[in-house]
C-alpha cells in the first residue's frame, strides 16, 4: 500500500478500527485537525450498533451515578448544533437535528416520583444548572396532545433532542471521503503489532503502518484491546426497535421510548435484553414495546409496524464509556460507549484533542478501564 502522508513515516497518522458512529466521529474530528486517517471497517453483516440505534441526543437522567458522564453528555449536546452545521456544509446533508426538549413519560406514579428524585439529585450535583420539569399527566398532555389518558406524568428537559442516525452515519462517511479519509472495508483486521514508534495493522494480504491506533470497534474491542495492553470488558445488550409506516407529523418531542422521525415513521423501542450476539426480534418483546407505546400514545394502536430489528448496545459493567490510552503501548487507545449519537459531538471534538495529546475541556480520567477488575 502506498504511503499517503509524506510528512510522516507512517502510511497514516491514525488508524481507527471500526467505522461506526464512534469511529467515524473521531475520524471526522481528526481530519479537521489535519491528520491523515484510515478507518478499518467490517463487512455487510457486522453487528453494527450504529445501524440500529434510536437516534436520541439525550441528556436528562444520564450519568445519575457519575457526574463526569453527566458533564460529558451535556457538553456533547451543546456541541451538536456546531457539528450538524459543519456536516451540512461538508455534505449538504441535513441530519435532522432537533434539540427542542424531550419528555420521559411515566406510566405509574412510583416511577414518576423516582425520576423526579433522581433529577433533583442531578440538579444539585450540577450546582443548580440542570433544567428540567416534572409534569402531571395533564401538563404533559398540554405539551404533547397525543399522550393518552392513563399516563402518570412525565419529566421534561429542554436539553434533550434527537436526530436521524442514518443520515448522520451517511454524512460522516461522505464528509470523511471528501476530506481525504481512507476507508478499508470488508476485511478483518488480523493483527495489530506495536512498533517502537507506531503500529502495524495487518489485513489479509496487506499491512499498513500507523502512528496511532484507536479501537472503536464496539463489541469487537473486547478481544482487540488486551494485546495492546488495554482492557474493554464490554458485553452486548439487545434493544429491539420497531418502525411504523409513515404518518403525518403528530409527535412534537422525542421520549425515551417513542419518537417520530423526519420521514414521518414512528420509532419505538428501549428493551434491554441479555441475549448474547443475537440481533433478532421476538414477538414477546415487540408486543411489550407496542403495548407500552399504545398506552403512551393511544392513536398508535391502528398504526402498522413496518420493520423491526434487534441491535446490540455495547455495554460496560457500569454502563459508562471507556476512554483510555495504553500504558504499555502509548499511542494505542480504546474508545467505547453505548451512546454513539449523543456523544458524537464530544467524540468529534474534545475526544480528538485528547487523542492528540492536547488539553481538553473536560476530564476523562473517570473513564479509565482501571475502574473494572481485570
Amino acid at each position, binding site marked *: 500500500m502506498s504511503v499517503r502522508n509524506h510528512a510522516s513515516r507512517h502510511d497514516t497518522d491514525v488508524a481507527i478500527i471500526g467505522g461506526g458512529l464512534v469511529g467515524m466521529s473521531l475520524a471526522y474530528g481528526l481530519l479537521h485537525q489535519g491528520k491523515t486517517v484510515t478507518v478499518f471497517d467490517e463487512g455487510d453483516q457486522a453487528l453494527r450498533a450504529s445501524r440500529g440505534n434510536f437516534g436520541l441526543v439525550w441528556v436528562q437522567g444520564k450519568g445519575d451515578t457519575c457526574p463526569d458522564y453527566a458533564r460529558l453528555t451535556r457538553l456533547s449536546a451543546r456541541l451538536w448544533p456546531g457539528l450538524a452545521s459543519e456536516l451540512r456544509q461538508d455534505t449538504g446533508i441535513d441530519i435532522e437535528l432537533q434539540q427542542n426538549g424531550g419528555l420521559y413519560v411515566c406510566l405509574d406514579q412510583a416511577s414518576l416520583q423516582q425520576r423526579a428524585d433522581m433529577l433533583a439529585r442531578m440538579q444539585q450535583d450540577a450546582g443548580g444548572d440542570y433544567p428540567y420539569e416534572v409534569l402531571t399527566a395533564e401538563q404533559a398532555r398540554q405539551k404533547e396532545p397525543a399522550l393518552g389518558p392513563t399516563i402518570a406524568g412525565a419529566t421534561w428537559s429542554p436539553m434533550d433532542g434527537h436526530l436521524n442516525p442514518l443520515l448522520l452515519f451517511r454524512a460522516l462517511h461522505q464528509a470523511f471521503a471528501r476530506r481525504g479519509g481512507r476507508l478499508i472495508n470488508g476485511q478483518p483486521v488480523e493483527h495489530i503489532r506495536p512498533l517502537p514508534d507506531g503500529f502495524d495493522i495487518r489485513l489479509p494480504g496487506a499491512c499498513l503502518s500507523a502512528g496511532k491506533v484507536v479501537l472503536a470497534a464496539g463489541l469487537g474491542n473486547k478481544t482487540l484491546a488486551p494485546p495492546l495492553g488495554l482492557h474493554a470488558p464490554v458485553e452486548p445488550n439487545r434493544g429491539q426497535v420497531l418502525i411504523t409506516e409513515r*404518518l*403525518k407529523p*403528530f409527535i412534537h418531542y422525542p421520549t425515551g421510548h417513542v419518537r417520530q422521525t423526519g420521514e414521518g415513521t414512528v420509532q419505538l423501542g428501549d428493551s434491554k435484553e441479555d441475549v448474547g450476539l443475537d440481533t433478532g426480534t421476538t414477538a414477546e418483546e415487540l408486543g411489550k414495546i407496542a403495548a407500552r407505546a399504545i398506552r403512551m400514545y*393511544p*392513536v398508535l394502536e391502528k*398504526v402498522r409496524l413496518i420493520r423491526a430489528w434487534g441491535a446490540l448496545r455495547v455495554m460496560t459493567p457500569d454502563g459508562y464509556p471507556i476512554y483510555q490510552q495504553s500504558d504499555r503501548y502509548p499511542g494505542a487507545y480504546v474508545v467505547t460507549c453505548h451512546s454513539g449519537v449523543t456523544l458524537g459531538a464530544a467524540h468529534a471534538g474534545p475526544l480528538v484533542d485528547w487523542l492528540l495529546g492536547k488539553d481538553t475541556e473536560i476530564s476523562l480520567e473517570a473513564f479509565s478501564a482501571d475502574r473494572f477488575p481485570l
Partner: protein
Amino acid sequence: MQTDSPFNRLETASAATVTIEIDGQPFTAREGDSVAAALLAAGAIPSRTTPVSASPRAPYCMMGVCFECLVEVDGLANVQGCMVQVSEGMRVRRQNGARALTQGDVHEAV
C-alpha cells in the same frame, strides 16, 4: 371519481354483486373481487400518491408483494388492497401521501 380507462369485465360465472364506496361514490363490484381489482375496474387510478414524493401509483403485483395498492379500507389506512376482498357497504378511500392520524384521534391540528 376518475373513470377513464377502467379494466373491462369479461363474461363471468354468476356471482353476487357487492356495492362499495370508493371516495364516497358507489361502485358495484363482483363478489370475489379484491379491493385493488375493484379500484382498477372502477378506473380509480392512480389509487394513491406516495408519502416520499407524492408520485402517483396503482396496483402492480396483485399478490401481496409490492405494497403499491395501499388504500384506506373502512377507516384503516395502508391496507393492501389486493389482499382484501370487497364486502357490502365497504368504504374505500384512496390515500394521498403519508396517512394522517385524524378521525378525531388527535384533536389539535399539527
